[in-house]
């Protein structure tokens, strides 16, 4: 009953999003929606490893960047864009498998610092190997349409959210959460912690790689190093935390809140908007553990308790 | 001297103590015995301020300990040796002892106190500049007790001083504890070696599941069947 309702809501939202380009003709607004969708993909894919499996990964941009660079090169070489994106995703998986075993030897803060360093290594290496800007060829520029990009971002975001939902509600998802909550207990029940972490990493990497591919298709000119920038990781992490890690809706809400708030702040506060944003973020971390989803849950719990105590009163 | 009245203490969300009341009079040696997880350590930690009871009162020498910040409790003359001693392994024996006299009251007289401690534990003087981590188990326990003595306590609380020690050392440690008590320091002892604890103590409390279930003089309890049954049934 409840599941059906959320399914219907999801369907309606998807349909609405698909219809957006019919009504929105302004490029700047559409670009803006593209960014939200991109961030939904990034934050949701980060959340699979960081939220559901509890491994705070600060090298997420590496996967995003790998997807972007592979897609861009293949696409320029004449490949079909979807095929190129798939290869981008697979490249991200290959890298995830490569680093998985050494990375998961590290625990807690060490994993976090280690992944941050890994991301930086890739960032610097790509900067060295591909120092030149990647500009769309003139003939592609002429045929450039934003609507195509919008639908691609929408598709990637849908795939990501769908994949996250499926995994979260599967046996694997249960295992991941068990690993996050209590690795010893999980292992004692037969959950292979390493396998689950690796699976989460691979899935997270693949989805981030796809998002990178969409970005490569979207951006007219950029330095190949740019998608590897730690900014992408930090932004996705912040979004997931603001919305609520370990939930499906959290990163989505976080991404929307993040992008919209940033835009609103930058329109109204001009140049000091990152400051206000930083303050807000700190407030969320300090006072809203569990992000917006956590807050929502607490409000619901309180109401529940009130209802229960009311019920008790009426049945003395 | 020390009086706990009806205290309830929680570990996070979990209640560990239910209405514990006990009293230690000046100069006494009191034992607190009970099985694993009964709440002995929790009781001591509630007194030192490491944990704060949710309910009840603790008074020491007329001070309400619940209103004293944890770092000032030592200054009042309450000192505790935690289970396993917990010496600062990376620091030298001397530094460990100095830290024992961190409180402002004890710091002024730390040199005299240290000489006094050396009399009780001559081994420590030999190892003065060695890192505490390199000491043997028995020496560590001595250091832990010596360190606690450095604060010039009126009440010394010991949590399982015999834990993990060879029997011969256990005897030695208990001798030293007895000696300290004779010097006029009141002692509250938590010990799993029930017989030794009861023989040493003037009085004892039996604690089970976070509640006091028995109280009496050491000898009385020793012969009291319920103590044996608390362990063996």
């Amino acid at each position, binding site marked *: 009953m409840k599941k059906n309702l959320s399914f219907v809501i999801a369907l309606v939202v998807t349909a609405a999003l698909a219809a957006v380009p019919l009504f929105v003709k302004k490029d700047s607004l559409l670009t803006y929606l593209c960014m939200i969708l991109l961030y939904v993909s990034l934050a949701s894919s980060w959340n699979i490893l960081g939220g559901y499996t509890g491994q705070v990964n600060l090298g997420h941009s590496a996967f995003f960047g790998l997807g972007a660079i592979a897609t861009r090169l293949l696409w320029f070489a004449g490949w079909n864009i979807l095929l190129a994106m798939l290869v981008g995703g697979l490249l991200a998986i290959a890298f995830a498998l490569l680093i998985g075993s050494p990375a998961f030897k590290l625990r807690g803060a060490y994993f976090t610092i280690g992944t941050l360093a890994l991301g930086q290594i890739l960032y610097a290496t790509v900067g060295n190997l591909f120092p030149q800007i990647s500009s769309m060829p003139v003939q592609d520029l002429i045929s450039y349409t934003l609507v195509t990009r919008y639908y691609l971002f929408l598709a990637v975001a849908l795939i990501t959210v769908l994949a996250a939902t499926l995994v979260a509600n599967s046996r694997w998802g249960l295992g991941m959460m068990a690993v996050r909550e209590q690795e010893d207990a999980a292992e004692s029940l037969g959950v292979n912690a390493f396998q689950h972490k690796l699976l989460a990493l691979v899935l997270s990497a693949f989805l981030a790689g796809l998002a990178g591919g969409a970005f490569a298709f979207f951006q007219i000119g950029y330095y190949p190093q740019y998608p590897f920038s730690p900014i992408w990781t930090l932004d996705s992490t912040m979004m997931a935390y603001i919305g609520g890690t370990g939930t499906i809706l959290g990163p989505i809400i976080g991404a929307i809140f993040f992008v919209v708030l940033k835009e609103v702040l930058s329109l109204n506060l001009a140049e*000091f908007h990152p400051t206000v944003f*930083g303050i807000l973020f700190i407030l969320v971390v*300090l006072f809203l553990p569990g992000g917006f989803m956590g807050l929502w849950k607490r409000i619901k719990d309180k109401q529940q308790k009130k209802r229960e105590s009311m019920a008790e009163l009426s049945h003395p | 001297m020390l009086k706990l009245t009806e205290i309830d203490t929680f570990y996070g969300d979990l209640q560990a103590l239910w209405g514990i009341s006990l009293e230690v009079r000046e100069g006494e040696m009191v034992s607190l015995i009970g099985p694993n997880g009964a709440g002995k350590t929790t009781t001591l930690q509630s007194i030192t301020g490491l944990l704060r009871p949710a309910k009840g009162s603790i008074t020491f020498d007329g001070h309400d300990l619940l209103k004293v910040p944890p770092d*000032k409790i030592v200054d009042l003359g309450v000192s505790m040796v935690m289970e396993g001693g*917990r010496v600062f392994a*990376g620091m030298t024996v001397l530094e460990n002892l100095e830290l024992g006299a961190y409180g402002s009251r004890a710091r002024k007289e730390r040199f005299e106190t240290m000489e006094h401690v050396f009399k009780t534990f001559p081994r420590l003087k030999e190892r003065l500049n060695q890192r505490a981590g390199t000491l043997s188990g028995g020496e560590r326990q001595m250091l832990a007790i010596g360190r606690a003595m450095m604060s010039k306590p009126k009440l010394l609380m010991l949590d399982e001083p015999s834990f993990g020690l060879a029997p011969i050392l256990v005897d030695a440690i208990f001798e030293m504890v007895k000696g300290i008590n004779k010097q006029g320091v009141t002692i509250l002892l938590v010990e799993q070696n029930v017989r030794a604890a009861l023989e040493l103590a003037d009085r004892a409390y039996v604690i089970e599941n976070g509640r006091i279930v028995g109280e009496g003089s050491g000898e009385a309890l020793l012969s009291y069947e319920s103590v044996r049954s608390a362990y063996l049934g």
Partner: protein
Amino acid sequence: MLQPLAQNIIYGILIGALYGLAAVGLSLVFGVSKFLNVSHGELLMLGGYASFWVFKLLKIDPFLSIPLTIIFLLLIGFIFYRLIFSRLIKLEVEKKIQNSLLVGFGLSTILQNVALRLWTADDRSITTAYSGLSFELAGLRLPAVRLISLAISVVALISLQIFLKKTFTGKAIRATVEDWQSASLMGINIHRVYLLAFVIGCALAGVAGTLVSICYSIDPSMGLNWTLKSMVVMVLGGLGSMIGTFVGGIILGVTESATAFFIGGNYRLIAGLLLFLIILIFRPQGLFGTKEGDR
């Protein structure tokens, strides 16, 4: 070939000392309170700007203005601790590391933005009358400014070491690092120790920032890079050992310089990070650490 290499290694040591100094502050804070303060690099930047403006506006020599920088950073540290970090101390270790990390990101966003707006994105550096001066020793050049910087780093480190080893307060800090519960039983106010360690860490970052502004240059976005370097050095040297951390910084500096010399400047950053990852995986307690390093 040998002489240029030796010269190059000297420069590696000189910059390594700055890495070390920056990392010592971070390491101290992490060791005592388990706050992984990722806005450490931004604190360094603040220190750099403080010296720069004092030099530019009041014409006070940057080396002489270090006490002012220290006071400034102590104040900043005090405010940040009271407003923000003190709210995290009750959390369990893992959560504390994670949340301090996140809060740090927020702080670094704020500090970067404020610096950008106050002082523009331009690179700044301090050039004194004696910049460029150097002594020659056995055919090797020893640059004056960097030598003084090295000396100041060493003095800062030794003062810290003396403070930690000889004073009661310093011992209290070390005791808290080892076992905060025991420390608390000694009558040590551990909250005060946390605060103290935090502000000392900030002050060290400030000193490092001053030296960076003299030897290199500063700009509002420099923070992340220095935070990362500090974290690398902190792990490299091993947690809990100040001297180890400092030596770790020098090792990183020399590694980078040697890489630039033998392979090329493009790879210096990567070589340092790779060294870090290798050590993290095979010796997580660091080169000089003794404790098991999984906390």
